[in-house]
């Protein structure tokens, strides 16, 4: 109790210095929140990818189409629950040149495979009944100001319609994610509408989503599918959804390594600033610490005195930083919707909290050790 009183008294000594140190720690943790969210965004939801889902695509590359006739053969295979065709559309909305995911699927099957896309039942029903129907993710709907019932017109690129140069969809639903890591930027519409209205591309689809009965068999099923179509004009590559997304994310580059490098630089900097402050605080107080020792404080108590001080600084500042970081990240991502998900994951919050404690220990350790080793006679004479 006495120790806490002393620590608090010490805070008041250099209010400005303590405040500045704390502010720099606060900033470090806001950065941590941002960078964790960015990293999550670039991972594209790999950690929530369903283990019971496979993706079948053309072996040469994702842009090569597969025959629609493969679906019947796939559905007949053992261990497979159902499959859905899927095709990249690549349309342009208004004058925006940026591509975002518009994908044609088979709604009845697709909604059974992807249960984490939450679509209200009546909207789902409308989608099943409307050939031109489409559902958009919440994030995209908000970005473009869409409401259920809107007509959405996309300019065609490589999917040319039979007439004109645009495709019109009826927005029958808006979906939410079952948890924050679900990508809500996509636009799903019906493959039968695509089949019927496109000028070229009879009988082809981009890839297949498959739901399997038992995730344990994922690899053997994937191998069997690829064997089935080996030596055909369109050989396939089947992988788990996780591997598929991971491969996709790695095409962008090693974002994880870049983020880690930046965070290391940030925390190293903060460590220097905070450590320097603590060292200074101890240096200035050498005489005082000598007095404390002379009147009977033990080595352990002096050590604790300094450590508690540094721990309090970094934990209070770290806590404020984590809270502010969480608030800023929740307010939206700085790229204006380029990242599919952007949030401060609970796991990252725990990591940040651990880092705050570690920071306090590391910055306080050396000065605290010096304080403990202080010889009271020496200390008093130095004054």
């Amino acid at each position, binding site marked *: 109790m006495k120790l806490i009183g002393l620590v608090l008294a010490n805070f008041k000594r250099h209010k400005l210095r303590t405040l500045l140190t704390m502010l720099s720690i606060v900033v470090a943790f806001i950065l941590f929140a941002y960078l964790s969210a960015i990293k999550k965004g670039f991972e594209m939801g790999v950690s929530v990818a369903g283990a019971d889902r496979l993706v079948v695509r053309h072996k040469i*590359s994702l*842009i090569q189409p597969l025959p629609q006739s493969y679906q019947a053969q796939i559905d007949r295979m053992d261990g497979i629950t159902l499959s859905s065709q899927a095709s990249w559309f690549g349309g342009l909305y208004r004058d925006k040149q*940026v591509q975002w995911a518009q994908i044609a699927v088979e709604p009845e099957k697709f909604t059974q495979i992807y249960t984490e896309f939450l679509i209200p039942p009546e909207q789902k029903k409308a989608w099943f009944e409307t050939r031109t129907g489409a559902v958009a993710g919440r994030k995209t709907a908000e970005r473009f100001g869409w409401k259920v019932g809107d007509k959405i017109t996309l300019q065609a690129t490589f999917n040319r319609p039979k007439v004109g140069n645009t495709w019109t969809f009826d927005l029958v639903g808006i979906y939410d994610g079952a948890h924050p890591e679900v990508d809500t930027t996509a636009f799903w519409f019906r493959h039968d509408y695509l089949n019927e209205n496109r000028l070229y591309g009879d009988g082809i689809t981009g890839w297949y989503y498959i739901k399997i009965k038992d995730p344990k068999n994922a690899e053997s099923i994937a191998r069997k599918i690829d064997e089935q179509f080996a030596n055909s004009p369109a050989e396939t590559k089947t992988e788990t959804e996780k591997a598929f997304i991971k491969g996709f994310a790695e095409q962008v580059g090693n974002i994880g390594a870049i983020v880690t490098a930046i965070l290391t630089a940030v925390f190293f900097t903060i460590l220097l600033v905070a450590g*320097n402050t603590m060292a*200074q605080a101890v240096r200035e107080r050498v005489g005082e610490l000598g007095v404390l020792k002379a009147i009977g404080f033990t080595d352990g108590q002096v050590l604790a005195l300094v450590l508690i001080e540094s721990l309090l600084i970094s934990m209070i500042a770290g806590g404020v930083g984590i809270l502010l970081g969480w608030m800023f990240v929740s307010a939206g991502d700085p*790229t204006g919707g380029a990242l599919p998900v952007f949030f401060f994951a609970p796991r990252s919050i725990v990591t940040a909290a651990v880092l705050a404690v570690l920071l306090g220990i590391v910055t306080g350790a050396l000065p605290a050790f010096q304080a403990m080793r202080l010889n009271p006679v020496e200390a008093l004479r130095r004054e």
Partner: protein
Amino acid sequence: MNWLAQVAALIGFSLRSLPARIGAALAAIFGIAGVVAVLVGVLSIGAGFHKVMADTGSPDTAIVLRSGADSEMTSVLVGPDADVIATAAGVARAGGKPLASPELFVVVDLPKRSTGTPANVPFRGVKAEAFAVRPEVKIVQGRPFAWGRNEVIVGRAALSQFANTELGTKLHLGQNIWEVVGIFEAKGGISESELWADAAVLGPAYRRGNSYQTVMVKLASPGSFQQFKDALTADPRVSLRIERETDYYAAQSRTLRFLVTGLAVVICGLMGLGALFGALNTMYTAVSARSREIATLEAIGFGGGAVMISVLFEALLLALAGGLLGAVGAYLAFDGYKTATMNWQTFSQVAFAFDVTPSLMIGAILYALVIGAVGGLFPAIRAARLPVSLALREP
């Protein structure tokens, strides 16, 4: 003693006493160096990507896509379109033949060297005109592919980033086997990330029939662009998008540059704030440690303004040291670092090298100086206002 001499003397004092405060000074220097290094490092990604795109275009070359297409990936032109384009006004001619190069663009999976994971590598099918339209493409190893055969040439950057692209490799893509017979350069342009083969062989292999993605056209002169564009726009047989090659590639790097710049502003803005608090701390501590000294100087006639300048100077000096350290460190660590990323417009990989340009370094050092100036200003004001009698009375 005049004012300038006072300032000079005071700066001398503070610099000589710097070793006594070396810990705090180093903390400020490294703090700022960290910010500068991250700033330069992040921005050099955008600069490097932009350099590849900027090195690709030539003002006397035009790219023709289908109207509505935003990139080669989403464009489809049929054979008759290509003929219309080749015979349009404004196209340069050599030996009576128009310099128009219809090109196929597909994407193939090759493992990245760094991670072993598959990457979308652009694979271009060309005709003889391609080499006339892009004179910068030169074989540096091996030989050009033979027309009509399953042979490819590989760009230098693609060779460094993707496995199975070495000279002599037999590349298995689907049911076709391609032999790598040559390595080419294109003055650092985006073509160096690509594989090239005969369009007449690539087309059937990918069942593209008599179709292409784009037609690249060499213009009679850079000024002929408008004439060429007007001629095709007015032609009722075709519906096309015509762009100068330089504009087309500049637009492709825009998304990544915006993203990188946006992230750099957020990250380095916050980091700068952190370093600013560190610098303030260092300078306040310096002033309070020297308060007796400063008070003594003021008592014997040094002006408050001169004291203020000397404190500010010290802060700027520390910031400059940190800025230089960070910029040079970033240059040594990042400049020329080769990597590849996804170009979302074409859904394929672009190899590039981080580019730490002098202007980036100078900009970052200026940023460091701003941090130093703000971090020194408030402590400097405090130093100048130090009540002499009080400071001297303190133990």
